[in-house]
């Protein structure tokens, strides 16, 4: 567990519009946001917005650790994987959504991918992506099922399906 130092919210004097991808790209490309990140020495930035069409939040997914597509650490000479340093530090959250969206997107910024329902083929999108993690702690035919949820699970059924 790494302690997090959460700063007080600061205004980002830009307006965002459109769907989640459009708003994310507008925020990510805003020089004002980059300046705020640098001046505050922030490792991660959560951009709160509203009226996102359709969705509740977004975080970059290039380097998510996923249950079916393991992400490999590509370390540099210093042992650090810095592939996401320029674009994997920001998440977008619609303030009109459940409070746990922020935690969910932070989970992605820490590298967590979506939890996938058993038997599903798609790695992390939509209806199959926010299921409870499920483990059989005793092999069949006993089939005692243990469910648990993670922050990248659908904690309050706020996701599609």
């Amino acid at each position, binding site marked *: 567990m790494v302690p997090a130092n959460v700063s007080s919210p600061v205004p980002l004097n830009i307006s965002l519009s459109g769907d989640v991808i459009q708003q994310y790209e507008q925020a990510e490309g805003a020089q004002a946001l980059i300046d705020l990140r640098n001046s505050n020495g*922030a490792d991660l930035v959560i*951009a*709160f917005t509203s009226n996102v069409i359709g*969705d509740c*939040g977004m975080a970059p997914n290039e380097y998510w650790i996923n249950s079916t597509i393991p992400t490999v650490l590509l370390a540099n000479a210093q042992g650090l994987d810095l592939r996401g340093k320029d674009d994997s530090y920001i998440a977008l959250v619609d303030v009109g959504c459940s409070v746990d969206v922020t935690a969910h997107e932070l989970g992605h910024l820490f590298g967590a991918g979506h939890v996938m329902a058993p038997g599903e083929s798609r790695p992390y999108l939509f209806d199959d992506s926010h299921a409870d993690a499920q483990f059989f702690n005793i092999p069949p035919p006993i089939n005692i099922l243990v469910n648990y949820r993670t922050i990248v699970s659908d904690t309050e059924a*706020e996701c599609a399906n």
Partner: protein
Amino acid sequence: MKRNLMFTIFLLFNSTTLWALDQHIKILPVYTSTAGSGTQVMKIMGAPRLL
């Protein structure tokens, strides 16, 4: 013996220093002009998605 002890202390100090570098992650919340608008509409549970 003394040299080994000093070396051990040196390693301990170094590893502690390296660990300290990763002690805190700073998270900066920012809110856009849009987020403060009065036209905000609470989303219907079940419809929105998380990407």
